[in-house]
């Protein structure tokens, strides 16, 4: 690599200070001063950059910089190593961009403010580089005073009170730090950190006090919960541009200091650090939930992220060689994302989260906002994802499962408020009275960091073990990227065509070689994707934000099938989740539902991650191939349970289903079939992989497939019963999906040939008819603008084609012969009797009956009965949607006539996994041990009878006169209330009276109750921060005293 000329790092400090002093001459020329500052920062950045470059590419060795011409420990020395180069680069770079961003604020406050800003950056650099503990103290003071000064860059009373609180707390902390330092000097005879480490303070009687004070003070500087109210208030009060720097640079710098100083202590202190970090991470995120102000919320998040870093630091020994990579990933994500988000907060100006809708005026910024939030939460393809992945793998391998659990829990809590915020931004009203401040100097930094996030994500992906296998995502993601870029310019017609072509090409080129399950799912994912996209031609305009995310979802789905190792698998899983989240979020009223979808998915993903981590550890921690699931030695029950529950958040098993109805029902008309008919199968595919690899496992003496069987059966029945009582057509279908996937889980739990055949038949059928139904109903909803069924009625006259679609769909769904749904029913009876799961089978059969009820309801209430006046002139659904529907109808018909076409090959490959109990095929007739079923015969006979009777009836009623339903009953008089003419509301009232207790929303109540409790705790805990500076100071002291009690023992 190119050799860059290395510049003595002392110039970072020299130039920073010198320029700051020089600025005194430019009292009037504020712009000149600003430009000078930028130039200085640019040089500082460049110096760090040269070092970083040399360390990475040219094998540069760390270099000591001596001052005053003497060697340490007698003079102060600085160190420029790889970490220092990295951190100083981060600091100066964000300082530089932040300086650009702060153009107006700095100019307004004049030269003094500019030099304070410059000194802050210089001080942070010094903190990172110095190896002398007292010098460190001086730089810390510089940084904290400069920070206190910059808090009041917007000089209002809030800022001053925040600044004052900040000074009280940091004054106390630095006082204690100084006591620690002087005692360290007393016991160690030196102030040089390296020599102090050698001096082994803890070995000296009393040295523990010095160690304690130094470490606790540095911890306090990092704002641990609950002694951090002063920091949080400062975040809320200070200008966003400053926050960006404080959060991105200061936190990094102080964190690095702690990692530099921590070696003076022993293992116990590492644990203390980890515990403090964990408490902070959990506590801060918990309180983040209840925040309504963007900057304050981000403050909590920042503090939480630093807590997470502390955990890593504390566990650095256990993390071993992966420590650096993990910290790098988390820090860089935090750095880019938090700075970016704070900058956005400055652009939006309003503090209130609910007013962020105005950001939509600049879609690119919303895009970056999403990027930053995803990066913060550790979703792929961002660096923190790879860090978290490595972290979980490493910690699991070290057997530290509790830590994994807590970290994932905290991340989930963080996701709650960050995604809610994103939801507000994307969905809530754009308040016209508010203005957005988007001068170039504010947007450029956001752009730079936003793009860097992707680039660093790419870099991280190459560094993670198994990273080279991630090249499989390059092509699809590149395509997604291109779609993002052209999204603003192209109309739906082109994008849709390109998307379909791309999917077809990708499927053809990369997925044609797939076999067995993967092929089957490929047909569902890719084939289904293409069909639903055809319906997309019905949309007009540009549909910004649809295609990239849809393609991202499909890329994830395809990735699941193509993945060979757990990393690929998990990334695919997350990509799919991300894409679908945004797709769902696009719906009109989908904000809360998208949030709960995301939270459940993320929770599920974390369970999967934990499960994979355990599996990795349990199989010897030396391979990430998907096959490790076959080789687990311990925790097998736990792994199985984690993964199964994780996958079932996607299949929406009962208990985890509450996100589904809303998410599927509120999505757009062609997104519903995607998420309901296609996406849910991803969870099923996960279960396939899991169950084939791990077989049956038990946990606590209970067979897990047995539990799954019950769970599936109960899901099936309850899901269907709930569907019966819906008034909203799409919700009805959504609940029906819950039930149908219950069948699937139930059937898979058999772990037998017939069971799996049933499951796959169910899955395939569900895909076809649910896509068909959602498309048809979607078309109706598109025309009627309502989803409430009883507001419709009589639409058969206006939308006959949609009617036929729905008719075919419900016949298939309810499993009536001769259509395809019957295949699943017949197979499931076989499997049930064979396995002896009579009661579960019974529940599932009832579920089928119940399905019949709602099927009838949906077709009756929408299409039959009295037509409503307002829909008199309604049009048939758009042609592209109908085309998509009729393709699916064709598939249903084909599958009904020739079930052997699909089931036979499926059965053939199932034999190698489950050799016993396979079906015999005689042409189109399936013969099981118990019975027989000939799809083609049933179809022909039924159609024959049907046809004969139909023709006959046509003949004998040839003189029939067509009348309008209205005339005959009401003599042409229109009753004023439509409820009177159309019986649709509360259709199965008798059932509700008899078994309504079954559909009490207990599960919903449970989750909402949990959410309430979480919010209440959050609300209660945040009362700790009463805004009084004295109280904050008190917490600092308490924190110290309490920890001294625990660590030194009073």
């Amino acid at each position, binding site marked *: 690599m190119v050799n860059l000329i290395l510049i003595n790092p*002392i*110039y970072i*400090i*020299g130039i920073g*200070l*010198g320029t*700051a*002093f*020089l600025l*005194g001459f430019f*009292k009037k020329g504020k712009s000149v001063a600003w430009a000078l500052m930028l130039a200085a920062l640019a040089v500082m950045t460049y110096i760090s950059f040269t070092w970083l470059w040399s360390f990475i590419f040219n094998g540069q060795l760390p270099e000591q*910089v001596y*001052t*005053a*011409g*003497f060697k340490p*420990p*007698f*003079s*102060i020395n600085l160190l420029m190593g790889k970490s220092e180069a990295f951190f100083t680069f981060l600091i100066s770079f964000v300082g530089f961009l932040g300086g650009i961003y702060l153009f107006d604020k700095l100019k307004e*406050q*004049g030269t*003094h*403010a500019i*030099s*304070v800003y410059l*000194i802050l950056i210089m*001080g942070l650099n*010094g903190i990172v580089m*110095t190896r*002398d503990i*007292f*010098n460190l103290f*001086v*730089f810390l*003071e*510089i940084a904290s*005073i*400069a920070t*206190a*000064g910059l808090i*009041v860059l917007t*000089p209002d009373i809030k800022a001053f009170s925040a600044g004052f609180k900040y000074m009280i707390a940091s004054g106390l902390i630095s006082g204690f730090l100084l006591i620690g330092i002087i*005692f360290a*000097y*007393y016991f160690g*005879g*030196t*102030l040089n950190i390296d020599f102090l480490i050698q001096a082994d303070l803890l070995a000296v*009687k*009393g*040295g523990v*006090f010095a160690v304690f004070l130094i470490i606790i003070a540095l911890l306090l500087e990092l704002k641990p919960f609950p002694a951090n109210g002063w920091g949080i208030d400062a975040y809320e009060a200070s200008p966003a541009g400053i926050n960006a720097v404080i959060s991105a640079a200061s936190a990094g710098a102080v964190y690095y200091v702690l990692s530099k100083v921590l070696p003076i202590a022993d293992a116990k202190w590492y644990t203390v650090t980890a515990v403090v970090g964990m408490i902070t991470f959990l506590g801060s995120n918990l309180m983040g939930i209840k925040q309504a102000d963007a900057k304050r919320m981000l403050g909590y998040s920042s503090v939480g992220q630093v807590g997470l870093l502390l955990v890593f630091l504390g566990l650095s020994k256990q993390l071993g060689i992966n420590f650096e990579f993990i910290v790098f990933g988390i820090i860089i994500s935090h750095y880019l994302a938090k700075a970016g988000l704070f900058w956005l907060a400055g652009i939006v100006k309003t503090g209130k989260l609910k007013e962020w809708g105005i950001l939509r005026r600049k879609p690119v910024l919303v895009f970056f906002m999403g990027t930053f939030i995803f990066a913060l939460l550790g979703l792929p393809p961002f660096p923190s994802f790879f860090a978290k992945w490595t972290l979980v793998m490493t910690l699991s391998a070290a057997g530290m499962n509790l830590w994994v659990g807590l970290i994932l829990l905290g991340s989930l809590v963080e996701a709650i408020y960050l995604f809610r915020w994103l939801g507000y931004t994307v969905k809530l009203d754009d308040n016209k009275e508010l203005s957005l401040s988007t001068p170039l100097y504010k947007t450029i930094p956001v752009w730079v960091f936003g793009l860097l996030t992707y680039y660093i994500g790419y870099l991280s992906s190459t560094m993670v073990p198994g990273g080279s296998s991630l090249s499989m995502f390059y092509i699809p993601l590149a395509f997604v990227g291109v779609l993002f870029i052209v999204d603003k310019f192209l109309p739906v017609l082109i994008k849709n065509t390109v998307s379909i072509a791309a999917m077809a090409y990708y499927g053809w080129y990369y997925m044609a070689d797939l076999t067995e399950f993967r092929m089957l799912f490929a047909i569902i994912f890719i084939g289904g994707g293409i069909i639903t996209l055809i319906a997309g031609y019905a949309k007009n305009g540009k549909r910004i934000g649809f295609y990239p995310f849809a393609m991202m979802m499909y890329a994830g789905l395809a990735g699941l099938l193509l993945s060979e190792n757990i990393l690929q698998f998990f990334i695919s899983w997350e990509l799919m989740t991300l894409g679908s989240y945004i797709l769902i979020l696009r719906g009109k009223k989908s904000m809360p539902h998208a949030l709960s979808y995301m939270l459940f998915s993320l929770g599920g993903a974390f369970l999967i991650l934990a499960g994979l981590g355990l599996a990795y550890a349990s199989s010897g921690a030396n391979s990430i191939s998907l096959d490790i699931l076959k080789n687990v030695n311990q925790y097998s029950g736990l792994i199985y349970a984690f993964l199964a529950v994780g996958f079932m958040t996607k299949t929406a098993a009962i208990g985890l289903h509450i996100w589904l109805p809303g998410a599927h029902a509120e999505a757009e008309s062609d997104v519903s079939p995607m998420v309901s008919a296609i996406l849910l199968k991803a969870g099923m595919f996960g279960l396939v992989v899991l169950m084939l690899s791990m077989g049956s496992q038990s946990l606590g003496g209970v067979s897990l497939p047995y539990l799954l069987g019950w769970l599936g059966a109960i899901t099936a029945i309850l899901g269907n019963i709930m569907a019966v009582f819906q008034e909203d057509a799409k919700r009805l279908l959504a609940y029906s999906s819950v039930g149908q996937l219950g069948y699937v889980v139930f059937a898979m739990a058999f772990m037998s040939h017939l069971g799996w055949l049933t499951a796959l038949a169910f899955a395939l059928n569900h895909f076809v008819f649910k896509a068909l139904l959602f498309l048809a109903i979607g078309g109706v909803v598109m025309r009627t603008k309502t989803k409430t069924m009883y507001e419709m009625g009589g639409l058969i006259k206006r939308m006959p084609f949609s009617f036929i679609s729905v008719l075919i769909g419900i016949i298939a769904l309810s499993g009536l012969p001769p259509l395809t749904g019957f295949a699943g029913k017949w197979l499931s009876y076989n499997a049930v009797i064979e396995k002896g799961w009579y009661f579960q089978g019974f529940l599932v059969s009832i579920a089928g009956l119940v399905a019949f009820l709602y099927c009838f309801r949906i077709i009756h209430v929408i299409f039959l009965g009295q037509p409503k006046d307002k829909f008199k002139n309604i049009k048939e659904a758009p042609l592209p949607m109908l085309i998509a529907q009729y393709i699916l109808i064709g598939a249903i018909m084909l599958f009904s006539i020739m079930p052997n076409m699909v089931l036979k090959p499926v059965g053939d490959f199932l034999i190698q996994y489950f050799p016993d109990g396979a079906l015999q095929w005689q042409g189109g007739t399936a013969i099981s041990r118990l019975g027989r079923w000939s799809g083609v015969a049933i179809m022909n006979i039924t159609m024959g009878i049907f046809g004969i009777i139909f023709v006959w009836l046509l003949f004998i009623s040839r003189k029939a006169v067509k009348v309008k339903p209205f005339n005959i009953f009401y003599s042409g008089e229109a009753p004023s209330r439509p409820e009177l003419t159309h019986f649709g509301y509360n259709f199965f009232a008798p059932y509700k009276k008899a078994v309504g207790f079954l559909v009490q929303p207990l599960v919903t109540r449970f989750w909402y109750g949990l959410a309430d409790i979480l919010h209440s705790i959050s609300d209660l805990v945040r009362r700790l921060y009463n805004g009084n500076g004295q109280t904050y100071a*008190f917490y600092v*002291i*308490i924190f*110290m*005293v309490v920890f*001294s009690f625990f660590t*030194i023992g009073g």
Partner: protein
Amino acid sequence: MVKKLFVIIVLIGLAVFFYGMLSSFSGNETLNMSAAYYAENGAEEVGAANLVTAIVVTYRGLDTLGEVTILFLTAAIAAFFLKSKDNFSKRKVKESSELLKTASSMLVPLIFTLGIYVFVNGHLTPGGGFQGGAILASGLVLLLLSEPLQKVNSVLFAVVESISGLFYVGIGVAGIFLAGGFLDNSILPLGEFGTLLSAGALPVIYILVGLKVGSELSGLLTKFQETQEEN
């Protein structure tokens, strides 16, 4: 009251902690490793009679640069938010006593002289740049006490401050090129031990520090003065 009780409990905890520290401190019989090094080699290497000064300005010169920076910061921060009142010189104040006025006009020059002496001789005698600078500023305090409405030329302070700061950094950088490293005082000849012109660049630095501290503190004081609305 409950809060007071808590405070007392916490303070007792703190006191217990401090007691632990105190009992671990047994005083020194001899100098430790670092101090012994300075005692043995300070005179020779730096050439300053005042070992404290040698440490402050040379061995730990970076600290000193830092603390100067902190003062600079403080002044700058105060300057950008304490907006001067235009009419501060027109407010009504009680006339200062004759005694104060007379004494200040006599004492201020003396104080200034003393201040300058202290930082010029910083490498030889107790005292140094900070002390000298503080003395200079205290002269200004006396001046302001006797003439509260007096307009002080704060631009002068700013210029002195900037120039001395720049020179300080400049000397530091010169050390990299001419001597062993940043802030090395041997860019100038060490001279004869114990005389005014000894210890290389050390006195120069201390003079700059003195000027800088003096002007910074003065600047801060005038800022406070200018912000005053009423008595």
